[in-house]
């Protein structure tokens, strides 16, 4: 559905926000863009929707060029920007319904879908409250609903779960999976890696505008499925089975293959009584990838 080839964006003041990014997104796929602040995630989304013009490289969206036809790109993409949506003077329901109608939905369909989203995200109690007075989390969920009430073929969400409470974050991820089940492509930016791991099919780790790691969360962790953490002041040399190692004060964290787990426990037991061995998370992959780069 979306193909990026060697996409590069250098801003006028010389900042290279995207540096040769190649990426393919298929219908029904949820892509998670991970990376530090300033890694180029928002710039990437802004180019797809035609707000930022690439310096070089190519974008194909549904077989067309969104750079040349930005107005068309905005009709097939739904975008939830990172900034809070403008909610002055409207209620949550009004904001979602107007956004849905502006995105081309019929009156009846938008009304039905708005009620459904309010219920599914559990924000019905604020449906008819002035939206500008709501908490940051509810406003964020409103902005999410505004983006997906009449969803495009490609849905782009820039940090959709910021400020949202843990229970409603899960509800939001459920909605993301439902959108993917309808054969839409979803590209989302998040710092909430532990949760995103359950929602995304494919992770892309960006660092200083480059792709430093990419793959399914499980594949990215392949060969380093386990994480060993031990607390010791001693300067230990990581053994041969350790794939990555990083030290933070007294704490040493290593990743390793599942088959080396027994050796790791023996080794750790020789040095300290304070250690733990857990399945590695996408967060470990992310931290390692961005540390190496």
């Amino acid at each position, binding site marked *: 559905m979306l193909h990026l080839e060697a996409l590069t964006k250098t*801003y*006028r003041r010389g900042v290279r926000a995207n540096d040769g990014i190649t990426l393919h997104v298929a219908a029904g796929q949820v892509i998670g863009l991970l990376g530090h602040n300033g890694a180029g995630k928002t710039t990437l989304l*802004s180019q797809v*929707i*035609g*707000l*930022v*013009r690439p310096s070089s490289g190519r974008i194909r969206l549904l077989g067309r060029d969104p750079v040349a036809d*930005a*107005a068309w790109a*905005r*009709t097939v993409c739904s*975008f939830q*920007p990172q*900034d*809070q*949506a*403008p909610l*002055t*003077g*409207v209620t949550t329901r*009004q904001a979602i319904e*107007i*956004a849905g*109608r*502006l*995105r*081309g939905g019929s009156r009846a369909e938008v009304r039905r879908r708005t009620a459904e989203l309010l219920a599914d995200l559990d924000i019905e109690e604020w449906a008819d409250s002035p939206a500008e007075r709501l908490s940051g989390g509810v406003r964020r969920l409103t902005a999410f609903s505004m983006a997906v009430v009449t969803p*495009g073929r490609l849905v782009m969400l820039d940090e959709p779960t910021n400020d949202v409470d843990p229970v409603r974050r899960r509800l939001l991820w459920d909605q993301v999976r439902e959108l993917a089940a309808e054969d839409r492509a979803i590209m989302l930016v998040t710092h909430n890696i532990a949760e995103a791991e359950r929602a995304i099919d494919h992770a892309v780790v960006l660092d200083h505008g480059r792709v430093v790691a990419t793959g399914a969360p499980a594949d990215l962790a392949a060969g380093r499925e386990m994480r060993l953490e031990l607390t010791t002041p001693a300067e230990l040399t990581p053994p041969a089975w350790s794939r990555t190692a990083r030290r933070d004060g007294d704490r040493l964290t290593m990743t390793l293959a599942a088959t080396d787990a027994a050796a790791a426990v023996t080794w750790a037991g020789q040095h300290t009584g304070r250690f733990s061995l857990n399945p590695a998370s996408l967060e470990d992959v992310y931290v390692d990838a961005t540390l190496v780069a």
Partner: protein
Amino acid sequence: MRLWLRSYLLLVRWTALRLRFMLPMFLVIQTFLAVGVVIGFAFLMPEVDPATALHLSTGAPTLGLIVIGMVMAPQLVAESKSRGTFAYNRTLPVPRTAVLAADLTTWLATGLPGLVLGLVTAVLRFDLRLHVSWLVGPAMLLVALTATTVGFAIAYAAPPTITNLASQAIVFIALMFSPINYPADRLPGWLQAVHHVLPFEHMADVVRDTLTTPASGIGWLPFAVLAGWCVAGLAITLRVMTRRD
């Protein structure tokens, strides 16, 4: 075209919802302004002759339109830029011209009640007899449109702090140093020359001429100058709205 119209109507509704709490405040400000000009300014003069009365009473509605278009509108655009509304609207699948047209419509509608109030105040105070031309509608529309598009151009092109400063400066220039409430020949020559280019004097002229229909006829030059400012304002605003980094 259907998409444009549909987007336009929805955006008007959205903008109107956003502005409806401010509307009473705008009305109060415009009324104060009109009363201030018509009644307050008269205190500055030892005696109010018919020419002065005419300038004050036709200047009041002109100033009302300037304040709405070149002060209130840009300040709200500046605020919407700070709040991210501007950036958000850019991501919506609606034609940019529809966004601009919807904003303009809302602001023109906002200025209308104040315009009528200003005029009524003036007529009551000075017991004026106006000879209203059929051109008064297009003239008022042109003045309101020019004030608002120039206001938008400033607000879209400049950072919010500069916009707020500029709109404050415009109030003072329009109120004190522009031949809106008094004849242009009271100004020094160089300032008269400046006002041949700036839109303020021309705004006052078209409003006064179409309300009184002078014997010499209604001049076309002020209309042409205002149209020029209006087109420039629109061009700059659209340029900023469609710009890509």
